[in-house]
């Protein structure tokens, strides 16, 4: 069964803290994405990747780094967390379509920066 697993599901950190959000997919997809979801903004793309070692900048990349270590694993790094990064973060994986494009989302990570 297609799956995207995010960890942790909830995280509280202090301003200036260092946070790593993890995402693993077992879909054999090449593309992976990190989004943040905030009220009034919908889902906004932070970073994405089309394979191990690849990283593409999304629409709201400031304050975030990402690393794709394997086809399965995509990490989002906040090295100096700020309260403005309090949000719900989603990871997704996707495969370019030959027919129906598959996009699967994880269950989300709720991050609070105090």
């Amino acid at each position: 069964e297609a799956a995207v697993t995010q960890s942790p599901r909830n995280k509280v950190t202090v301003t200036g803290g260092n946070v790593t959000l993890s995402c693993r997919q077992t879909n054999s997809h090449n593309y992976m994405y990190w989004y943040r979801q905030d009220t009034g903004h919908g889902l906004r793309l932070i970073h994405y990747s089309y394979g191990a070692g690849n990283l593409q900048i999304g629409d709201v990349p400031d304050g975030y780094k990402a690393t794709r270590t394997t086809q399965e694993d995509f990490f989002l790094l906040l090295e100096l967390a700020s309260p403005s990064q309090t949000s719900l973060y989603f990871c997704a994986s996707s495969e370019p379509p030959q027919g129906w494009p598959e996009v699967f989302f994880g269950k989300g990570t709720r991050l609070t920066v105090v």
Partner: protein
Amino acid sequence: GQQVQQSPASLVLQEGENAELQCNFSSTATRLQWFYQHPGGRLVSLFYNPSGTKHTGRLTSTTVTNERRSSLHISSSQTTDSGTYFCAIEPNAYKVIFGKGTHLHVLP
């Protein structure tokens, strides 16, 4: 940058009523999808519909690519349809861009 506009922002219906959700996008999108977010947060794909009309159950999606718009019609709404509906496009390089969503609340 690429833009995806959804309307209405929110919608309240009585159970049994129909809903029409709109999506307008700023480019000739190569791929358009509709997603549903459960009230608990889980996101799932509803339709991949780059052009034309597609049906599944009580849902119908119609995309008119050269007019840069798509609609999602929900017939005979049920309380379990409550949640947020997102339109998303992939204008290039598999960069998936979402609209802000339509929050639907169906009353019993």
